[in-house]
């Protein structure tokens, strides 16, 4: 039966592996190949140009700006999102005070409701979220400035997306708002699987909420947090950051390139400027950044597994 087993496995793997090779691996090889050409994307003829595109990229101020913004996205967003999500999930699941007759370990009052509220933005498409926030950020009649005026802060009327110093943070805030709920649910699931006895023991020992969180919850949740970190980072480097920047700050990525990110730059070069080869070059750079990010996070996050 042993031979049969391998044939069985191969039979099952052939199709998905083939699809993976065709739709994932092959485009990669192709893009890397095209990054050495002068392909425009608008005509079938092109020539090999060696490392010209790479040299040009290293000289390109906008590329460096977009790289820096993408890195900021990949570093700041996960910290903010996961931090908030951990806090919320902890409060929802463990952080409540003991109520009479209730279980020893429970969330704050109304936690089931909060869970739904936090998750709600996840249901909306990122395009809709971006549009809604673009309206809210409107400095003339948007919700935020109207609110500021309403509470008497007439003098404080920031331009939000129109201000190069604020635009990037405005965009990040939207991403945090829209993704935090997903991680609250993810971490809630993780916390639910932590045995209640551990918490009860901590409670008996008189541990405060903060201690409980850092000594019990976080270590036992570490693997989930790490996955979340990688996932969030990739989200921040890829599709989501593209969507918010493209929709909200329109123009070419914010005032004075203040919100340009690498994916947006790839898109613009390929589909606006007719420089598909250069776009693939930036795409290769983005691939390297993404892989490096994942590698670093996994290496830094490696620690002994706690079994329970």
């Amino acid at each position, binding site marked *: 039966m042993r031979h049969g087993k391998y044939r069985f496995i191969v039979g099952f793997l052939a199709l998905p592996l083939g699809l993976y090779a065709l739709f994932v691996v092959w485009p*990669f090889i192709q893009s890397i190949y*095209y990054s050495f050409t002068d392909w425009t994307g608008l005509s079938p*003829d092109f020539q090999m140009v060696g490392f010209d595109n790479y040299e040009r990229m290293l000289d390109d101020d906008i590329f460096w700006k977009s790289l820096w913004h993408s890195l900021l996205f990949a570093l700041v967003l996960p910290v903010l999102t996961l931090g908030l999500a951990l806090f919320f999930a902890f409060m929802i699941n463990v952080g409540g005070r003991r109520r009479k007759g209730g279980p020893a370990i429970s969330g704050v009052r109304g936690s089931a409701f909060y869970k739904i509220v936090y998750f709600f933005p996840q249901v909306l498409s990122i395009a809709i979220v971006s549009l809604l926030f673009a309206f809210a950020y409107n400095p003339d009649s948007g919700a935020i*400035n109207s609110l500021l005026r309403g509470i008497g802060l007439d003098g404080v009327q920031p331009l939000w997306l*129109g201000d190069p110093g604020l635009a990037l943070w405005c965009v990040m805030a939207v991403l945090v708002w829209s993704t935090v709920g997903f991680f609250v649910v993810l971490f809630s699931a993780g916390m639910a699987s932590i045995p209640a006895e551990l918490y009860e023991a901590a409670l008996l020992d008189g541990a405060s909420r903060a201690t409980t969180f850092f000594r019990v919850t976080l270590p036992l949740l570490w*693997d989930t947090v790490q996955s979340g970190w990688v996932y969030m980072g*990739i989200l921040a480097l890829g599709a989501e950051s593209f969507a918010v920047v493209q929709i909200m700050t329109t*123009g070419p990525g914010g005032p004075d390139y203040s919100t340009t990110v690498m994916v947006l730059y790839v898109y613009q070069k390929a589909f*606006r400027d007719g420089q598909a080869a250069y776009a693939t070059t930036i795409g290769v750079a983005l691939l390297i950044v993404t892989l490096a990010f994942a590698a670093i996070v996994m290496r830094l996050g490696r620690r002994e597994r706690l079994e329970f």
Partner: protein
Amino acid sequence: MGSTAHHRAEGVGRRDLIKRSAALGLVATPGMGLLSACASSGGDGQDKAEQGKKTAKNPLGVNDTAGMEFVLFDGGFGKEYAEDAVKIYERDFPKAKVKFAATQKIQSTLQPRFNQGTPPDLIDNSGAEQMDMGVLVGKNQLADLTALLDAPSYDDPKKKVRDTLRPGIVEMGQFDGDPVWILYYAYTVYGVWYSQKALDSLDAAYPETWDDMLALCAKAKKKGIAGWTYAGKYPYYIPFSLYPMIAKVGGREVLDAIDNLEPNAWKHPAVKACFEAYYELYKKGYILRGTPGLDHIQSQTAWAEGKALFLPNGSWVENESANVIPADFGLAVSAPSGLDASDKLPFGTLWASGGEPFIVPAKAKNAEGGMEQLRIMLSEASSKNFTSKVKSLTAFNGGTSGIDLTPGLKSGVAALEKAGSNVVNPRLQDWYVQLQKEKIGVSGLGELMAGRLTPAEAIRKIQSFADEAAKDSSIKHYKHQ
């Protein structure tokens, strides 16, 4: 498989999740897969339709049995006008099968077809997904339209199509030298848009000099109305009034030098004077609060609501903002104010040029058919049909008599008449898209008008952008002939 690694609470191992999310990253990374999907694969689809016989009724020699495919950008002008023209083609060539499609996604639909060498016969290459013309021309993807221009016009066999067009249309379709690659069908008047009613209520006429402009803005400010607003997120609308002002102050050579990317073109005193004039609007607080954070629709709405007097824009604004412009608004457009009496060109100097670029691909199967369709569209009847349906002029010179012009259109025609030969057509916006929109527009003018750059700083920054573009070998460079 009884491995211990799976002996945990969740169904999915966490390690697996990490691996999967890494794989997800690989997929998501860039739009690279997408790019490569349209990589060149097809050979040359050189099975062109045979030419038909040239007759008086068929001067281009269209094969009357060959199919014709027409892809239109379905934007602010809709698709009805083109459908009407297609009906005429079908009437003229009853045996031909016409395939007509309208889409907003010009580039994503057509880029792969160009790559495969099987493009349609006529394209309205417009909208946010416009394909880069410079690249198309540089890579020999477009057919020369000279044959069409030299053909007799649809209405009058004694007149060439060329002679029925508005000034500047033919030149705009050329890049370097004689061939004409593009035919711009719409004709856009750019300038300062305002409400006649609002000016009347301030007891004012449109200011011809900058001192008058500032005085009027001061007057409006007292009533709580801002002088100007503009598409803050797309500050490349500012040039619609700023560039012709530069031409008025310093002569059209200044704009030509800028288009030609000549060294120090932006350091001309006329440019500096105009920048300072516009900066004055910011400094005196005559720009609607929050404008740098508004997009074009938001700024147009604020302006239509009477929060600001003036708005630099193009003639499409009448159609685009039709639902927010009040009926008694008195929509009007004016050529930009100048500085004073010492300006080189008279008041009325205006930016007007073609819009909606139509192209016939070099590899089209039935290029004659595509051109014939354009010839039909350039007839007086089709042109009138367009103007009355979408409130915009066409490249056809005339064709406005006998139809009811909307207020904005009427004022645009009047502005054109007043301008006479003083129509300028800065080419940065179709020659160097990125330079014009992002660099000069957003990073230069946008920052200047938001008060984050002084005029001197803005000029220095823009000049260095222009110098970079002049040196960049990856973009094709053009010169005014």
